[in-house]
């Protein structure tokens, strides 16, 4: 597996056969603290990559930097051949790199359907001058609604489509957020803790949805604490600790990596590495 994804040995910052995202020297400091200090990393195209690490490792900050929601002190990264450093977040999304949030951001006072429609790109009716003339955008709106209906059916939210998003459960909101991100037709989707707060009954369907994304040709990068999920669906795992990338590799190998065990045991006793390597303390 390592050979299919990485060129040569799996080590921190190793080159990939077909990278979609390449980041160099990304540094982010808060006050005097270094939150993220990534020398080099490549994300493989068309694969599911997990970004793991103990609390405070800088995973979400790294996500924010890559997607333009935060600005680094220095660093460059290239997505799909396009330089992204300094590009505002909405343009990053338009280029096909779409993210979700750790704390779900369902737009509570819009209906589920309106949430979905909002995800669609290049809508004529979003121009203030065209907005007044329904005839300009009516047809596109119908197409958008059809796409939204398909996705809602797939995510089993179709029965809720006319409810306010505020009325959904935590897990349903996660699903809605993912479905809404798909409305943008992304090439790469970045999920920040997709399983957090999701009721176990929904877990399996969420995992299946993520695997489906790969089948459709999308690249998936996700931050997760749940090792069960990491082992079952990821093709590649990148481990961060204290802002740096400390290990990379296919999931089974990474779990055995002493650097990873150190990172978890050193900073976060309770993390379940899933391989009976819990701290004995």
């Amino acid at each position: 597996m390592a050979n299919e994804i990485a060129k040569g040995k799996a080590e921190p910052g190793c080159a990939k056969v077909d990278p979609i995202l390449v980041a160099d020297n990304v540094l982010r400091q808060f006050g005097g603290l270094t939150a993220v200090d990534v020398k080099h990393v490549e994300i493989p195209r068309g694969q599911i990559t997990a970004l793991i690490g103990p609390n405070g490792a800088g995973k979400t900050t790294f996500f924010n930097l890559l997607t333009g929601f935060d600005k680094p002190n220095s660093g460059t990264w290239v997505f799909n051949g396009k330089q992204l450093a300094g590009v505002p977040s909405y343009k990053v999304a338009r280029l096909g790199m779409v993210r979700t949030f750790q704390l779900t951001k369902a737009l509570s006072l819009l209906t589920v359907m309106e949430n979905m429609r909002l995800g669609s790109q290049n809508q004529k009716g979003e121009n203030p001058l065209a907005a007044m003339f329904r005839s300009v955008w009516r047809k596109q709106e119908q197409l958008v609604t059809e796409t939204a209906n398909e996705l809602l059916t797939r995510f089993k939210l179709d029965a809720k489509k006319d409810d306010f998003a505020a009325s959904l459960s935590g897990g349903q909101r996660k699903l809605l957020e993912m479905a809404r991100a798909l409305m943008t037709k992304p090439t790469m989707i970045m999920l920040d803790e997709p399983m957090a707060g999701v009721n176990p009954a929904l877990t399996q369907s969420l995992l299946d949805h993520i695997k489906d994304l790969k089948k459709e040709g999308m690249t998936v990068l996700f931050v997760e604490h749940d090792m069960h999920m990491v082992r079952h669906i990821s093709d590649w795992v990148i481990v961060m600790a204290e802002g740096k990338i400390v290990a990379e590799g296919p999931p089974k190998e990474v779990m055995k990596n002493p650097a990873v065990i150190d990172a978890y045991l050193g900073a976060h006793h309770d993390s379940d590495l899933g391989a009976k390597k819990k701290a004995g303390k």
Partner: protein
Amino acid sequence: MEQILANALGELLTPMTAAYALAAIGLAMHFGFTGLLNFGQAAYMLVGAYAFAMSTLAGLGLVPAILISFAASIVLSFVLGIPTLRLRSDYLAIVTIAAAEILRFIVSTTGLNDVTGGPQGLSGFARDFYSINPFPAGEYGFWAWTMDEKGLWVRVVAWSLVIIAALFVSKMIRSPWGRVIKGIREDEDAVRSLGKNVYSYKMQSLIIGGMLGTLAGIVFVLPRAVQPGNFGTGLTFFIWTILLLGGAATVLGPIIGSMIFWVLLSLTDGLLSAGVDSGVITFITQNQIGGIRFMLVGIGLMLLVIFRPQGIFGNKKELYFNG
């Protein structure tokens, strides 16, 4: 007593009620639908009033004067929006209220007497408007709503504008554009992550709501002179009270809010005044009634925000305060 009631009900249709309704519709666009904390709606009204009055006094026709007012209003939106729309929302609140005061100081400075009329303000600018009055001289209406041909003309124009503005805003809000705007109100990062230029949409909303405020400013001064003192922070706070009274995230709310507000204010005024005259109320004088009604507005504003933030007509589900 009947006179007091008639005075109060007469407020239902005054151009002033219409002007406040228009300004509140603009504020609904800002705050109710986009979540922008604009505390300088008085600035937009001031810009409308002065740009319109100065243009017509300079000999321009009504249409160019209105276009110039709109242009000035858009410039104001850029001046307010560029430094603040990227920052946390309370910055917009402070900057807009500051900008409104700056503008009022500037137009009332005696150094600009020749341009803005300084503290005296401007008058005699509405002649063109009344010269195209299609109604023949005479008395119109009945009981509380008796008016001359000028009063009729200005009311017809003012309320037509209110209706057009309400239809316009409700159309905009139901469009995909309105969806983005409401999304921004809920969570702007989420909207950003979906590829929308949030900054640009906020600016568009600021401009549109501001233009409605500008139009309100024009309507406001048509039946009177332009006075810098009328465009203080009190004006903005009244508009907020009206908006919250009717429901911030509704289109009809600002209109009904304005009507209720002015009727109630006139009614309390009349009753207090009659009470003082007849000796029933002894603890205040006629001179102090104005202050009492301001206190009532303040208390009303507090109670509304605490106990019924969605307004009288707002849907509890469409609670719009977040954060």
